[in-house]
């Protein structure tokens, strides 16, 4: 019997407990509904859960650690000579064994592995039986106990609700775990990096040429990991050029759509903007690289700027700006429409025109929301990767010329981590340091922006 089969048995037992306990609860003598605490189905659920949960947890736990245990035991039963060396070799060895056991492979390539197969199989079998049996026993005990304890005064409903609460609370912890995971992994790798490269160097240096670091004698040598050009490039593209495009267009589009457009027009235009938001960034990147960047270069050359490169901050930034339009316009839309319609009526009733109403009442009222939205948009723009990877280039220039190629933090992360990686090199690790900086900056932007937006929303609730 496999673990899966046991799981089915468990389910069956849980169902049985449910049905039995419910039946028992139904038989309670009830004089008035006011005097029983829980309805029969709650008693049933309580029994079912008591049967299922401990046993299920056991099976789940085994599912996670089981393979390791079986593998260790198998290896320890093998003769010394046939055991694989620890590390990658062992991993490959076990993969082969498991492949054969599961029938994916007709036979293993290593003889030792072939030798291990039957041992593995029998070890696995006995463990499965043991754990499965234990689980069934647990289910029986749990279900039976719950069934026996099914009595009118048992607060089954409260207990079931309690269980649900705990499960839900556990689910919500995932978010914290993710954040923790991000912080820890970034910190860990970054510390590694900073043990090799001076953090001040990294933060204030103006030379970025990680490739040179591949040569062992240059690891951590000065100038190679100065990230200022990357920070500048990120800000230049994401916070300046993109915003110059996105803020006016996004804001005005939102204003037009919410305040002016007839509902029929709005029905057509709004989804259009939403489509713009739904286009994947890789498409924008491709478009920027294939169409916009050459056009920008041609234009620059035609007005006499010979130095124009085919990968320019302007191309990447303006496409990014377009990409951000719907983001800003929908934030502005939210902010404007959470200003109560009564405000608008109030202004109209005083004889204000639409634009006066918008400029003097609606926008000021919605300003915190709009500002928060813009900050979030900036955060998003500086974290945007694909457009810059594809259209901004890789040259870490410290320049304010939008026609030159610049690079950004995110583009460098991709660059650094998609080549051949040696995990110990400063080059690879520097990506995590960049990631850490990016994370911290966006985190702060977000927290600030979100508090602004939240406070704003509350003002009108």
């Amino acid at each position, binding site marked *: 019997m496999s673990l899966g089969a046991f799981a089915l048995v468990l389910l069956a037992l849980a169902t049985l407990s449910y049905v039995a306990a419910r039946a028992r609860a139904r038989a309670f003598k009830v004089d008035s509904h006011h005097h029983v605490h829980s309805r029969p189905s709650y008693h049933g659920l309580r029994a079912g859960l008591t049967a299922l949960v401990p046993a299920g947890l056991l099976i789940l736990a085994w599912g996670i650690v089981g393979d390791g245990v079986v593998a260790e035991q198998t290896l320890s039963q093998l003769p010394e000579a046939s055991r694989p060396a620890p590390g990658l070799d062992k991993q490959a060895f076990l993969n082969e064994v498991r492949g054969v056991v599961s029938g994916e492979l007709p036979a293993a390539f290593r003889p030792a592995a072939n030798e291990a197969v039957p041992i593995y199989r029998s070890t696995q079998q006995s463990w499965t039986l043991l754990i499965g049996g234990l689980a069934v026993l647990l289910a029986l005990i749990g279900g039976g106990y719950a069934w026996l304890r099914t009595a009118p005064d048992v607060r089954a409903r409260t207990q079931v609700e309690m269980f649900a609460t705990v499960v*839900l609370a556990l689910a919500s*912890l995932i978010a914290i775990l993710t954040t923790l995971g*991000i912080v820890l992994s970034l910190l860990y790798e970054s510390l590694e990096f900073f043990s090799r490269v001076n953090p001040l160097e990294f933060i204030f240096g103006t030379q970025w040429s990680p490739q040179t670091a591949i040569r062992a004698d240059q690891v951590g040598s000065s100038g190679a990991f100065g990230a200022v050009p990357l920070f500048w490039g990120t800000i230049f593209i994401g916070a300046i050029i993109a915003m110059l495009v996105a803020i006016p267009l996004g804001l*005005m589009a939102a204003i037009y759509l919410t305040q002016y457009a007839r509902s029929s027009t709005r029905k057509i235009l709004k989804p259009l903007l939403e489509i713009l938001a*739904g286009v994947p960034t890789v498409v924008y990147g491709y478009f920027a690289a294939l169409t916009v960047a050459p056009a920008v270069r041609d234009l620059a050359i035609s007005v006499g700027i010979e130095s124009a490169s085919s990968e320019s901050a302007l191309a990447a930034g303006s496409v990014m700006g377009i990409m951000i339009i719907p983001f800003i316009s929908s934030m502005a839309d939210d902010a404007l429409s959470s200003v109560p319609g009564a405000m608008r009526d109030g202004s109209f009733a005083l004889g204000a025109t639409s634009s006066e109403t918008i*400029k003097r009442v609606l926008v000021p009222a919605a300003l915190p929301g709009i500002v928060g939205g813009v900050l979030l948009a900036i955060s998003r723009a500086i974290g945007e990767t694909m457009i810059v990877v594809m259209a901004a280039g890789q040259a870490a220039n410290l320049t304010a010329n939008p026609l030159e190629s610049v690079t950004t933090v995110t583009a460098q992360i991709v660059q650094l981590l*998609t080549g051949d990686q040696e995990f110990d090199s400063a080059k690879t690790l520097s990506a995590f340091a960049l990631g850490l900086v990016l994370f911290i900056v966006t985190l702060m932007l*977000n927290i600030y922006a979100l508090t602004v937006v939240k406070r704003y929303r509350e003002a009108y609730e």
Partner: protein
Amino acid sequence: MSQSGTRKLDWQSKEMQARVRRRYVRERRFRRVGLGAVIIAASFLAFLLFTITSNGIGGFRRAELALDLNYDPAILGIQASDSSEEAAATAVSRADFRPLLASAAQAQLGDSSLVSEGAWLAVRDQVVEDPSLIGTTQRVWVVGAPNMDILAKGQVDFDLAPDRRGVSTATVAAYRTLREEGRIRLAFNSGFLTQADSTNSELAGIWGALIGSILTMAITLGISFPLGVMTAVYLEEYAPKNKLTDIIEVSINNLAAVPSIIFGLLGLAVFLNTFGMQRSAPVVGGLTLALMTLPVIVISSRVALKSVPPSIRDAALGIGASRLQVILHHLIPVALPGILTGTIIGLSRALGETAPLLLIGMRAFVSDVPEGVTEPATVLPVQIFLWSDEVGRGFVEKTSAAIMVLLTVLLSMNAVAIYLRNKFERRW
């Protein structure tokens, strides 16, 4: 008439009239600026779609050449002894079709390079399907080489000097002859939708990437949806106001705005380096994207739950429904459209996501269609990214064609979301 000591407002005065006129002028200007913004955004979209489509439409067609193939067992190296069906099949699958095609092409077209290097694969599959072909001679349409493709699609600029056209004059001549003979045609590129990646642009397909995407999304959905909804329910309906829930709340809101590439770094550091999971596998991609999608689902679910008027909650509590009953009977059903909308939007964002997947290795060249979530795979956006980097001329239209496929999928997902939202939008 009223306020003593102040002048009565004279709306008819010149000043006032002029003032009103000026205000109207400003009004109209402002309105036009707004409309302009929308038009700019919309025309950008139109331009983008137009460019992609005009570039990509060709990707769905390919040039095919007619060859008379003599399936000579000798050339194929199939012995008569392989008479049993099983043996014959094995033999066919081991047979080398390349010389067969090469010689036929050389003989009939005068140049074996006019046929795609991988054209034999289709021929072999044909024979595997129908072993009785062996020994016969058939006219078969085989995939042409890239230069045939561009000639057939008229993508060669004959105004340029011959050495700058990218195709030799000989090839052009060969193409013209073939065309006169009716041995060349532009046909629907079925391989594009049914095959995986290839180094030959004329053979490259997106099926592998599509399956990769589907597998990845299945993992993402399977993890982020239940967790997201449960988290949202917990935060909205149960969470007491304390430090822990504040932290959860802040984490979620921030995760939603953390750059996707950070999730890539997380996936790389945790799933690959720490847990030692398989690089390039949909399961890793799915997990990474699930973490990224989770906050989106949580937030939109919370909004949906919040938008259920508190009066419904009160009503249910007021007749003695328990918390769980309130949630299951009233809140979730009413909030479901909102939750689904948010989920679809989160998922479609995940589906278009590239950067984090690059970091966990889903950029590997995978020429097989993945069969499980632990096998190496790539996904559509990454495939697009990879192709966009290819130098081969045929990959430009492949890239655009792949974008068209991706956009179609995304747009239909968004359409569903919009539909859901409009259909169930409730005015309380």
